[in-house]
């Protein structure tokens, strides 16, 4: 599989503390890759290393097929919004974008109006960026990340501090850019439910280390509603389920089967199992919320 970004044991050490510890993730072209972790988990540190703003203490990463010092030639294909948006408060949105256009050698004068339109700041005119609302500043930060036509955009906590309307606007902007322009996104957040609405892949980071990397389908499967069936003979129970036309199930261990369809047919399943001589030790409908799943993985009640 072709990845545009592969990190290999990325580690960042401050003093004796590993802010990021041996993190290895893989990002494909077109992904919206979500980094989940509580505050201080190491998300920003990882993103800073990938963005070229911080040097790894150990490990390396491959970017668009380039690694080591060679990847310097493709760093311009990354756009970043790390932590708070870096903007000149006395300049307008367009002036802020113009500065980056000049720095990146972008001469096309239509770029700035187009990007302002994309992020919904086309009507801000000469209003100083310092007078913008938090949501507008975040959108200006995203606009800055989009200058230079990047293939990969890294957004660190882009919805932090936004009101619900602002969150929806940012989410729609990201989805639009991903679908229409094929831009790959890496987005960090500690607001899991929001990230779950747009991300196609996830990496769960805790205490500087990668706990799990999984796709959206895998995560939904882990967190979806299901029948949890406990029986004394799982092999025979599977045969019964197949005969009933139930195919979406998973044998978890020696006596547990998770069934992901016909959730309202628990009674019929129990009866069929009994008819075939399979004892039902327990049956229940379960639903693990994303947050519960995260907390179970990281073993805590943090603010993620």
């Amino acid at each position, binding site marked *: 599989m072709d990845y545009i970004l592969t990190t290999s044991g990325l580690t960042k050490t401050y003093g004796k503390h590993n802010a990021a510890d041996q993190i290895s993730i893989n990002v494909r072209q077109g992904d919206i890759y979500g980094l989940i972790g509580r505050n201080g988990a190491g998300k920003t540190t990882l993103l800073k290393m990938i963005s*070229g*703003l911080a040097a790894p203490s150990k490990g390396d990463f491959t970017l668009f097929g380039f690694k080591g010092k060679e990847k310097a030639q493709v760093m311009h294909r990354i756009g970043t919004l790390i932590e708070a948006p*870096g903007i*000149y408060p*006395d300049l307008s949105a367009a002036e802020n974008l113009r500065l980056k256009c000049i*720095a990146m050698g972008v001469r096309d004068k239509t770029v700035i109006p187009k990007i302002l339109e994309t992020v919904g700041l086309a009507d801000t005119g000469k209003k100083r960026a310092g007078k913008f609302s938090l949501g507008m500043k975040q959108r200006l930060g995203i606009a800055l990340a989009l200058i230079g036509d990047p293939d990969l955009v890294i957004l660190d906590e882009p919805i932090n501090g936004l009101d619900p309307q602002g969150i929806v606007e940012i989410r729609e902007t990201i989805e639009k850019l991903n679908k229409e322009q094929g831009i790959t996104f890496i987005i960090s957040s500690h607001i899991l439910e929001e990230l779950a609405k747009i991300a196609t892949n996830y990496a769960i980071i805790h205490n500087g280390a990668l706990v799990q990397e999984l796709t959206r389908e895998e995560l939904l499967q882990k967190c979806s509603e299901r029948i949890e069936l406990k029986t004394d003979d799982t092999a025979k129970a599977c045969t019964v389920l197949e005969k009933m036309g139930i195919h979406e199930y998973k044998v978890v261990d020696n006596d547990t089967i998770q069934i992901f369809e016909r959730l309202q047919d628990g009674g019929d399943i129990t009866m069929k199992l009994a008819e075939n001589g399979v004892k039902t030790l327990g049956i229940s409908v379960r639903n693990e919320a994303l947050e519960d799943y995260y907390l179970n993985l990281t073993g805590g009640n943090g603010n993620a």
Partner: protein
Amino acid sequence: MLNLTKMDLHRLFRIKSFWIMIAVTVFVSFFSVYMTHYDATTHTDTVVDMTDMSVSEVPPEEADVTFGVYVDTKSEWADRIDFTDLINSNIAGQLLAILCAIFPPIFVNGEQKNGYIKNIAGQLNNRGMLVLSKLAAVAVQVLIIFAMFIFSAAVMGKICWGDKLVFESVSDFAKVFGIHYLLHFSFASLVTALTILVRGSGLGMTFGILCSTGITSLLYAFADVLIHKCGVSEEFTISKYLIEGCISIVSPDLSGGDLARVIAVGAVFLVASTLLSMTVMQKRDIR
């Protein structure tokens, strides 16, 4: 590099502090030239103390350690004054050094302070280029300070002296201007290096102001004592090898060894502070 320089120059002309700098430069120039005229026409062989706005009868070279901004004035200037002498005496009094200690750090630190640097630094092959582009903008900033100061001095000089203000030698003016520009740009680059080093304008600014107002001369006097105790000649004084010391001795008559030393001091400080800034910017993570 060229794009970054264009970006910094574009920004330079759009920040508030740039226009404040021009206003302050014009005010300082008007005030200083007026005080020089006042002093030349009402006193003899005195110096104007710009720090406490009073007139001192003690020339700085007669005191062991002097504080403040001093502009040398000669009694004959009441009847006739060469524009080069007027400009040199004011610049040698560290007036522009103070401005160079204040405005370049504000400009250079702006990008770090608001985090704009994070938008561009990661995409550069060599972050040291960020320093060179800043210094190119600072060079322009210092040039504008000089231009505004000289232009304003010409206006105020004409108002105060009328036809008694003369312009005797283009080459003398060019010499004084060139040496002072090198020293002031070097001074600004040193203050810039401190700003980059500590990621804030406070230290650089404070250091620059202390140097240009002569307060650091206490340290130099102490260092001289220690150096002399080590057997080095009594003629050696450390301030001769520092930028602010060199600024104060520039004159149209400067030549030979002194001229070479002053140029060498300016060049060495410029190169050293540029290399320090580039190394720090390249090696250190961006916050």
